[in-house]
């Protein structure tokens, strides 16, 4: 068999990942936790847990529940805060063998700007992903991600504060996701991550209480994949910046669906909880698919839909 020369490089704002398979924010900590369970060197990129200016303890437990086709989470952006992040996590991020993208969150515009400014020009950081779509906090979070005007103004200010790749993570909890996508692109986002969790809830009929103490939570896992694929497909027709697809990816075919729908890269989230090696398997699987189907680069996928 003649093997074609294939190129799996992802390019965003002039920077690259060697392959299109990243791991999703909040599911992979800051990378070190999985060092013995996943080949980090083979990852396209690691998206870290959200970082906020101040330490956050997170929501009252229970924070997790099993639901058919996935899970619910309401972690509440629990993280050590910017200062401890720089002190304790940064040295470990510096030694990661793949790009590290810091997920940035906050309760106000100033919060986001503070984290972005501090991380600007930090050698060890490949870029930032702005979490404007967390359904699990009372202030900020999803509020920024559901109103195109509010989002546009946040992205505009972040663009001034941060010079590296600026990725905006979109919420599926909107009527028309192309509106927030366009607003982010118009104000200078370099790429879009699509999608965050879908708002969900589960009630225990015996105790007559929600399983998650907050009531509602973020729904993730294989059941949300059709929502994510549809979102990527619609967004890809609305914007011209690269899209990183995620939501329910658990195997090579799931990843290929996203690439065919218009994504330039993907992230694995909840599926890591069932098998931390899944991203490594998908990377190999995508290359094999490209080899078998005569695709030479990731952009070949887009014309094939």
């Amino acid at each position, binding site marked *: 068999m003649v093997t074609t020369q294939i190129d799996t490089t992802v390019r965003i704002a002039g920077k690259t990942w060697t392959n299109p398979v990243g791991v999703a924010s*909040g*599911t*992979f*900590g800051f990378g070190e*936790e*999985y*060092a*013995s*369970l996943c080949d980090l060197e083979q990852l396209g990129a690691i998206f870290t*847990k959200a970082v906020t200016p101040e330490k956050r*303890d*997170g*929501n*009252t*437990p*229970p*924070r*997790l*529940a*099993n639901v*058919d*086709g*996935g*899970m619910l*989470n309401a*972690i509440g952006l*629990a*993280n050590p805060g910017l200062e401890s992040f720089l002190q304790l996590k940064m040295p470990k991020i510096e030694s990661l063998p793949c790009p590290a993208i810091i997920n940035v969150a906050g309760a106000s515009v100033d919060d986001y700007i503070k984290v972005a400014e501090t991380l600007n020009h930090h050698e060890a950081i490949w870029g930032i992903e702005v979490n404007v779509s967390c359904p699990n906090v009372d202030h900020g979070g999803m509020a920024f991600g559901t109103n195109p005007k509010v989002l546009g103004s946040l992205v505009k200010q972040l663009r001034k504060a941060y010079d590296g790749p600026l990725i905006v993570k979109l919420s599926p909890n909107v009527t028309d996701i192309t509106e927030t996508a366009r607003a982010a692109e118009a104000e200078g986002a370099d790429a879009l991550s699509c999608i965050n969790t879908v708002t969900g809830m589960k009630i225990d009929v015996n105790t007559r209480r929600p399983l998650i103490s907050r009531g509602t939570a973020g729904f993730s*896992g*294989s059941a949300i994949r059709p929502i994510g694929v549809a979102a990527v497909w619609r967004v890809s027709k609305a914007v011209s910046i690269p899209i990183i697809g995620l939501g329910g990816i*658990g195997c090579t075919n799931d990843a290929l669906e996203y690439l065919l729908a218009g994504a330039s890269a993907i992230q694995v989230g*909840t*599926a*890591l*909880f*069932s*098998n*931390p*090696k899944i991203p490594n398997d998908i990377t190999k699987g995508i290359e094999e698919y490209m080899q078998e189907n005569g695709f030479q680069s990731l952009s070949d996928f887009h014309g094939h839909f």
Partner: protein
Amino acid sequence: MTPSQFPSHGTVTVVSHTTVAQGYKRMELQYANPVPQPEAGQFFTLASPLPAFTPLRRPFAYAETFPNGFSFIYELRGQVTQAIAQWPVGTQSDVIGPLGTPFPLPTEQRKPILVAGGIGVGPIYALAHTLCKNGYAPIVSLGSREAALIPDLDWPASADVRICTDDGSKGIHGNALAALQPDESKDAEFYSCGPHPMMKAVYQLAQKNDAPSWSSLEEMMACGVGACQGCAIPMEDGGYERACVEGPVFDSRRLAW
């Protein structure tokens, strides 16, 4: 003791699978490749047999450890435990472990008192064996609703095992603390795993006697390796710690009961 730094992820094969009580089974698994030996109180996560439907791995405590494998004792509860209960000998799966912080050995001179109920029997069984190997003669109090729910296990000879049932169908009539004489609690060190009210009662008894106590807690887990912050346990001094890294065994005095 420090938490295990490098859990491994590997294939296991079922080599023995039996019913040990009504609604409880013991599964013995053999590793395909050698892995670090776990300590009593540590746990592993078992891959869900239905990953697209219920993706989260399920945590279980080690009950016995062997040079090339281990056993655990589990209650048939929901989707995953009902599904694995059907596994015949020879079934393959995969486990990640050892995870979490184990039980510490007792402070010098103190007599270990172990209290278990329900799914807490597995880790307490492991601890009883570890203690006996180290020259201790622990008291083990097992609480249960009725005789049929008490697992039939090979407790070490030097352990003083006392059975308590709520309905009096076996052993002492009463809860797991009914088996303890007041003077036994004086120079004791307590270890408990089981229903929350039971562990709280053990903690209160320990407090009354100014004795150290350790509780092994259960909380929903997603990653099991400290990455997701899902398994938060509220601490007495505010904030949370992770059941999968700092726990599941905690100094009872540090917990927000």
